[in-house]
C-alpha cells in the first residue's frame, strides 16, 4: 500500500510497490490524461510532476512517490498550466493529441522558472518529447505564447 498526494488529494494505491506510477494512475486510479507511449522514458507521453519537477511515470515505481506530491494534467491548476492550455487552443497545437498532456506538463516546468525562454531553451527543454504527428512548430510557438501571456499578465498586476 502506497500513500501519496495526487492533484492535492490524499490517495492510496493497492498495487504492488514496484508497479510503475503510470499504471497506478491510469488503471487503478483511472486518471487517463497521462499517456503510455514507450515505457522506457524516451517519449515523454507519461510526464507528470513529482514535487513540482517533471518525472516520467512509466519508469517511476509507485513506492518512489510515497508521501510525495504528484500532479497530472488533470490537476495542473497553476497560472502556468492555464496559460499553456489556452495557448494550446489558440495555436491549435494538437493533431492526434496523444502526446500533448506530456508536452504541456513538460512545458510547465520550463515556464515556472523561465516565462520568457529563448527558442534554444524551448528546444532543449522539450527535445525529449516525441510528437509522432510532428506538431513541433506549433508546440514551440504555443510555449512562447503562453510565456509572453504570463509575463504580460504579471506586468498588468504590478
Amino acid at each position, binding site marked *: 500500500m502506497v500513500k501519496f498526494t495526487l492533484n492535492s488529494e490524499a490517495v492510496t494505491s493497492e498495487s504492488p510497490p514496484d508497479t510503475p506510477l503510470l*499504471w497506478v494512475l491510469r488503471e487503478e486510479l483511472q486518471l487517463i490524461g497521462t499517456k*503510455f507511449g514507450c515505457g522506457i522514458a524516451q517519449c515523454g507521453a507519461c510526464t507528470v510532476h513529482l514535487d513540482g519537477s517533471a518525472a516520467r511515470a512509466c519508469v517511476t515505481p509507485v513506492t518512489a512517490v510515497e508521501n510525495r506530491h504528484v500532479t497530472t494534467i488533470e490537476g495542473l491548476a497553476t497560472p502556468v498550466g492555464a496559460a499553456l492550455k489556452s495557448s494550446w487552443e489558440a495555436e491549435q497545437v494538437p493533431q492526434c493529441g496523444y502526446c500533448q498532456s506530456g508536452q504541456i506538463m513538460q512545458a510547465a516546468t520550463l515556464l515556472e522558472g523561465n516565462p520568457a525562454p529563448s527558442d534554444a531553451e524551448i528546444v532543449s527543454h522539450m527535445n525529449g518529447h516525441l510528437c509522432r504527428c510532428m*506538431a*513541433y512548430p506549433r508546440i514551440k510557438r504555443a510555449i512562447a505564447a503562453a510565456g509572453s501571456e504570463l509575463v504580460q499578465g504579471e506586468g498588468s498586476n504590478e
Partner: protein
Amino acid sequence: MNKPIAALSRRQFVVGAAGSSLVLGLGSALGGCQPDQATSDLVSQGGSASFSPVMWFKIDANGAITMNIVRAEMGQHVGTALAQVIADELGAAWEDVSIQHVDTDPKWGYMVTGGSWSVHTSFTQLSQAGAAGRIVLTEAGARMMGVAPEACRVEGSRVHSGSASVTFAEIIQAGAVSRSFSQEELDALPIKTPAERTIVGRDVPALDVPAKSDGTAQYGLDIHRPGMVYGIPLIPPTRYGAAVRGIDESAAESLPGYLGAVLIEDPTSTLQGWVVVAAETMPVALKAAQAVQVDWQPGETASVSEADLLAEGSRLARDPSSGTLVVDDGDVDAARATAATQLDATYRTATALHFTLEPQNAVVEFDDVGQCHIYAGNQWQSLILPLLAQVLDLPETNIIIHQQYLGGGYGRRLFGDQMIPAVLASRALGRPLKLIFDREADSRFDCARSPTVCTFAASFSEQGALTGVEHAAVAGWPTLSMAPGFMAPGVAGEGKFDGFSISGADHWYTMPAHRVRAVNNELAQKTFLPGWLRAVGSGWTGWGVESFMDEMAHEMGEDPVAFRLALLDGQGKNAGGEGSTVGGATRLRAVLKDVAERSGWGRALPANEGLGVAVCHGQERGMPTWIACVAHVAVVPETGEIAVKKLWQTIDVGTVVNPSGAMAQAEGAALWGLSLALHEGAEFELGQVKQRNLDTYKPLRMADVPELDIIFVDSDAFPSGLGEPPLIPVAPAIGNAVFAATGQRVRDLPIRLA
C-alpha cells in the same frame, strides 16, 4: 483507383421532426419504401427491414446543431472540416455546431478513413445535405414571416427577409417540418459558389482541440468497463506459420489475480501462434507476461533479414517478366534499342514503422444479448468487421466498434487486427478485457512499410534528347494481404497490382515513352504484413522518380527546375479533366515555378550547402494535390552529417476548407517526409523488425525541425486531399540537395553519407 464510396443513388434525403428536434439524413428507398416511412424511420432512428436511415445532422429546439461524423479522428480534425462543409451550405452559425464520431452501423455505408480522401469524397454529398436543410428551413421560415421563400436568405442560423428574421430554433419550435428529396432533386439543389461561402475557407478552431489540450480526450487505451480484466499479448517469432508447442505458466500461477494464458485460435489464420496473458489488474498482467514462457515452432521466415528482402527486390526488378504493367506509353524498347546513351539507377527504401504513439489496444465486452462491443480507434471499420464476424462466427451486425480518438493513425489503424486476440481472449475468459500491447510488441506486430527497390532506365538520342524511361517498383503489397478486392487490373489486360503501392509512378510529366511495372516482393509478403504507411507507394516511387529526374537533368546538362518545367506541358493525358484534375500538369508547373522563385533557386550558396527540388501530385492521378518542394541542406563533410536548414513547399490542393488545419497537416506531413528521409528506418532481422522502441527507432525531434515556408495556392478548384501528399517530395528534395551540396548521389532511404 477504386474508392470505397457508398452507393447513394437509391437513397432519399429526408428531413423530419423528431420530438422537438429536426433531423436531416438519408433514407434508403429500398423495397418500395415511401418517403413518409423514410421520414418516420429516420426520426425514430429505428429503421426497419427495408429501410436503414442515416442521420447526417440534427437541430434541436434550442438551435444546437449536432453533426454525425463517420470518419476517424486521428489528428486531421476531419470532423471540423466536414462540419464546416455542411454548416456553410446550411447557413448555420458555427457556434451552434458540435460533432459526434459514430460507432459502426450498416446505415453509415462504407466506413474508411484514409488515402487523404475524406474531404474530397464527402464534399459534394455534404454540401447537398446542407443545402437541402437550408431549403427546408427557408420554406418554413418564409411561411412564418408570410413572405416568399425566394425573398429570404439564410445566415447565422437565421432565415432573413429584409430586416425581419426567424431563428432555426424558432422554426423548429413552431412545429413539424417534413420533406424528402430524391437524388435528382439533391443534385439540382443550388450549391453555394466559392465566393458565397462563409465557413468553408475559414480558420474555425477545431472542435477536438479543447479536449486534446487538457487531457480529457479519450483514446482506445483510456476505456474502462466494469469488471474489466487486462490482457497482454505474447507475440510469436514470425508473423506467419508459428505454432505454440507449449505454454509454461508455472512462474505466473502464484501471482494474485492471474487468470491464465489464452491460446488464440484464429479461424481466419490472420494471426498464428498468439497467446494472451490475462490478469485481474494491470500490474499483475505485466508481471505475468514476463513470467509465462511460450515455446514456439517458428514459421519458415524465421531467418529472413532486411538484406534478403532487398536482394529479392533487386532480383525481381531486373527480371523483365516479373510484375504487372501499370503504364505503357510509347515504345520504350525501341527507345532503348536506338539509344545513343543510357542512364540506369536503383533506389531503395528501408523498412519503416508507423510507431503510433498510442500503442495498439482494444477493449472488448460481450453483452447479454450476444453482441460484441469493441472500444478502439480504427480507420477502416468496414475491413475489420467482416473478418471479426468470421473470427467469432457471429453476424457482422452483432459486432459494434465504438470509435475512439486515434492516438495516431498514419495508416496503421486501417487494419484493426489487434481486435482479433482481444475478442477471442475476452470470450475465452468470459470477462470484459482490455488488451494492451507494450511498445516492443506494437513494433513487432506493426504492418511496417515494406523495404522497396525501384529501378530506372532512361534512353537518350544522339542529340541528347530523352527518348524513354522504364521504371520497375518492387515492394510488399498491403492491399494484396489485407484488401485483395481493391487490387487493380494491369494496363495490358493481364495481372493485378496494388495501386496504392505504385501510385506516384504514373506521374504528370510528358514522356516520349514511359513504362512502369509494379512488382510484388513475395518474400516480403510471406515474412510480414506490409502496411499502408502515410503516403503509401508514393513514399518510395516518389523517392525514385524525383531523384531520377534530377539525375537525368544533370546527365543532359540541364537545370533540374527547367528540365521539369519543360516536361510539365499539360499536353495529352496530362491535360487534366474535371473536378480536382482540372488544369492538369499546368498546375504542377505553376507550383514549381512559385517554389523556385520563393526559394531563390539558382542562387550561390556557401560550400557544402545546396538546394534540391522535387514535385509530386499527391497519391492518385484522379485526385491530384499539386506540390513542389525545395530543400536547403548543409552537409558536414567530415562526419557526413546532413542538416536540413529550410523546406519550402507550394501546395495547390484546390479549395482549402480550414486553412489552419490544412497548414498543420502540411507541416506534419512534410516533417514526416524529413523524418523518413534522415531519421527513421528499421531492418528485419531473424524475421522481425529489430528496432522496436525509441532507443533504436528515432523519429524526428524538435531540435531537428528546420524552418518551414509552406504556402497554399489560392484556388477554388474542387478540394483534393492533404493528409499525406506533403510528405512525398521531401525525401527526394533532400537527396537532390545533398547532391548539389556534395556531388554525391544518394539512392537509399534513410539517407546516410558514408
